[in-house]
């Protein structure tokens, strides 16, 4: 059984080699039969990797400890759901998931790319094949999940307890669907460079893939952030940890790509730049994979560090990034430049968006790599954290956010800022009102809080204004306006939703950063803590035995003004005996959009049953992740746009509906 999975993986490598070479040669020679090889080979390769992944999953579910990988990361007493998700909770398994998703995207191009020009399709599949070959080699040579252990131990070493969580079940597959989804954009870019031809239709083919990848990456990052928030017990939502930055950089670049592809599609301008962005976005995904998987960084993601792995991925990184950029340098000049436009226009606004986003990407890149470079060159150990990013990333984002509502309202080719400003008067006035109200009427509101809330309101209202104006609300009869509103292209809704979601996320961040209340204290059973008008009573500690852990559960009651308990919060200190590892299980109670977050510290030694407790009141915190859900919804709606469904890529809507059989 296990050997079958191993064998399927080797077969996939062979198929991937065929996929890399035959369609490419066929496209070069103009041989339709050779080009046609690409599709079936890609789909079969996907099936093989899928089989391999299924076998590994079964080994996990059945606790087959004759596999080194299962023995090191699983335990027979682990709850079934985590046995299943533990398949990708380790280095080898997660790399297998990576290539599975890569081949999945390849298969989607093969299956739904029937309307692509034959040579373009052949070249795209070949480039996907190169990436697949490199990573399959990486898995088989340095990270084989099917390595056997003789004799097989009776019991496994268990999965790192903080990974035994539902967040982990969802975060990696989503993140990889995003990361790896950008490989399709990369393949399209390299294929265009190989052919030396690129036009607006190219952008129309690439945009849905970019959108789909972006939606998943947004979800993956958001899920990872929420997981860190509740599982690590510190109550922070973003730490500027290099590992987080590794996923944030492709997101920023991908967001830029999403916007520049619009210009290319509509106005056939910015062609070369869009091509470069497509290459850079996936390069950053590869860099992220390297940072996280190589063990250069110590984090929860670095399951084991083995120098040969780092060197191997670095090799892949060099070949793909170096190769594609060299190809770009050689061929970009042969591509024709596109249309011209006035700086003040929709195109101009999107260029500005790209300028800000790519510069922001660069600052994050520098902040992430600088400590590694300094250590490699001078042996000095430094860390670059939040203060650095607040000083660089922050100032870049603020003007960008302030400009967002202008973009969708500007006309193509030549816009009129004054006219747009006039249309945004209402949103601006309302945002100003939010600033004043926040500053004057909310206790302890800083200037930052007031301006931040105002900016968030500006984004939300700006997005709504855009919709209202396009539907003609106020200018035409309500009935006509409603009909126009419903008839608006989905991409207009998509844009508005995404920008609105951005505003909501910003509001959540401002809410937490400015109005968070924190209390650290020793609580005796029965003691009541008052925090931000909520009264929390500590009821006591009680030991509980779980399937593969023991825990001390701290029970807390929320009291009504009359002193009656109306809700309960459980917070626990867990201990996983197999790994000898304690974890903190935060108790979280959502009240409206805000949350009360209770985290337990150590029990005091005086025997009174008192315990150190850390309680946060986190106002509007759920909006941080809620906003990203709205952004994702915007991406989905935009994917459904007629423009992307009808015409050249007729069946492309399949990309947004993918059920991702591996993810669930």
């Amino acid at each position, binding site marked *: 059984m296990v050997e079958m999975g191993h064998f399927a993986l080797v077969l996939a490598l062979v198929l991937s080699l065929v996929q890399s070479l035959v369609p490419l040669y066929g496209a070069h020679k103009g041989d339709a039969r050779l080009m046609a090889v690409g599709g079936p080979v890609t789909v079969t390769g996907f099936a093989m990797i899928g089989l391999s992944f299924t076998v590994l999953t079964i080994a996990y579910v059945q606790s087959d400890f004759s596999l080194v990988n299962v023995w090191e990361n699983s335990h027979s007493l682990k709850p079934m759901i985590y046995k299943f998700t533990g398949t990708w909770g380790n280095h080898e398994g997660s790399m297998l998931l990576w290539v599975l998703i890569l081949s999945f995207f390849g298969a989607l191009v093969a299956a739904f790319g029937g309307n692509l020009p034959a040579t373009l399709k052949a070249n795209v599949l070949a480039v996907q094949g190169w990436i697949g070959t490199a990573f399959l080699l990486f898995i088989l040579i340095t990270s084989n999940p099917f390595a056997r252990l003789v004799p097989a131990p009776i019991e496994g070493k268990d999965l790192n307890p903080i990974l035994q969580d539902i967040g982990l079940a969802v975060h990696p597959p989503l993140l990889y669907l995003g990361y790896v989804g950008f490989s399709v954009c990369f393949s399209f870019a390299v294929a265009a460079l190989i052919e030396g031809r690129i036009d607006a239709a190219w952008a129309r083919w690439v945009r849905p893939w970019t959108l789909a990848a972006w939606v998943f990456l947004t979800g993956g990052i958001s899920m990872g952030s929420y997981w860190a928030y509740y599982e690590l017990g510190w109550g922070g939502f973003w730490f500027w940890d290099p590992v987080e930055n590794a996923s944030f950089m492709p997101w920023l670049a991908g967001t830029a790509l999403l916007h520049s592809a619009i210009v290319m599609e509509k106005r056939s301008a910015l062609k070369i730049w869009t091509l470069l962005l497509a290459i850079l976005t996936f390069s950053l995904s590869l860099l992220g994979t390297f940072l996280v998987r190589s063990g250069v960084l*110590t984090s929860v993601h670095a399951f084991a560090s083995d120098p040969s792995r780092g060197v191997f991925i670095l090799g892949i990184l060099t070949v793909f990034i170096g190769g594609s950029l060299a190809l770009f340098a050689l061929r970009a000049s042969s591509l024709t430049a596109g249309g011209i436009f006035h700086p003040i226009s929709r195109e101009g606004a999107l260029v500005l968006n790209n300028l800000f986003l790519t510069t922001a990407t660069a600052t994050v890149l*520098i902040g992430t790599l600088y400590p590694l470079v300094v250590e490699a060159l001078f042996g000095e150990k*430094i*860390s670059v954290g939040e*203060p650095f990013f607040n*000083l660089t990333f922050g100032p870049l984002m603020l003007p960008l956010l302030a400009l967002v509502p202008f973009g969708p309202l500007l006309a193509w080719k030549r816009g009129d800022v004054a006219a747009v400003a006039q249309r945004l008067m209402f949103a601006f006035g309302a945002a100003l009102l939010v600033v004043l109200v926040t500053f004057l009427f909310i206790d302890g509101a800083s200037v930052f809080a007031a301006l931040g809330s105002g900016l968030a309101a500006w984004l939300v209202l700006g997005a709504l204004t855009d919709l209202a104006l396009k539907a003609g609300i106020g200018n035409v009869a309500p009935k006509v306006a409603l009909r126009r509103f419903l008839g608006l292209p989905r991409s207009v809704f998509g844009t508005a939703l995404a920008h609105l979601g951005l505003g909501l996320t910003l509001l959540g961040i401002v809410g937490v950063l400015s109005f968070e209340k924190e209390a650290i*204290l020793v609580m005796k059973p029965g003691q009541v803590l008052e925090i931000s008008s909520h009264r929390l009573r500590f009821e006591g500690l009680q030991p509980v035995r779980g399937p593969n852990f023991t825990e001390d559960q701290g029970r807390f009651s929320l009291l009504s003004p009359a002193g009656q308990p109306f809700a309960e919060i459980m917070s626990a200190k867990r201990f996983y005996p197999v790994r000898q*590892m304690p974890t903190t299980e935060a108790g979280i109670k959502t009240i409206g959009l805000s949350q009360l977050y209770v985290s337990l510290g*150590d029990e005091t030694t005086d025997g009174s049953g008192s315990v150190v407790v850390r309680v946060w009141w986190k106002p509007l915190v759920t909006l941080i992740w809620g906003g990203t859900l709205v952004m994702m919804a915007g991406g989905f709606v935009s994917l459904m746009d007629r423009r992307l469904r009808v015409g050249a890529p007729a069946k492309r809507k399949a990309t947004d509906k993918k059920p991702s059989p591996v993810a669930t």
Partner: protein
Amino acid sequence: MTRKQKRLSVIAGALVFLGAATALTFYALGQKASYFYMPADLQAATLEPGQRIRLGGLVENGSIVRGQGTEVAFGVTDSEETVKVRYTGILPDLFREGQGVITEGTFGADGVFVADSVLAKHDENYMPKEVADSLKEKGVWQETTQ
């Protein structure tokens, strides 16, 4: 303005923007990057008062003293020198005597290091990389691979 002049002014604008961003980034790197020290490195180091650093090492055996409420004091050692650290808050789950830690903060006037964050480990095998490297150089600690 001719088309060429327009284009040049746009490019100049972009360059000014990029220049400002670059300058800001390097300024921030100079100001905001915090250096890592082991206790024995501190004598050679020249620290400005109030400069934030990261101090790493092992939690000295028998040094953990819990004070009022959530105050805690402990020693961070690299087996040559020991620095006393004060911290208020909840310690990370895997904070134990003899384990590697990284604390971040500033030196107080009394020579005690006042930490505002004590770095958590994610895994029982994991020694913060900086600490592990430095200890290995000193030959105090070896990686135990299973």
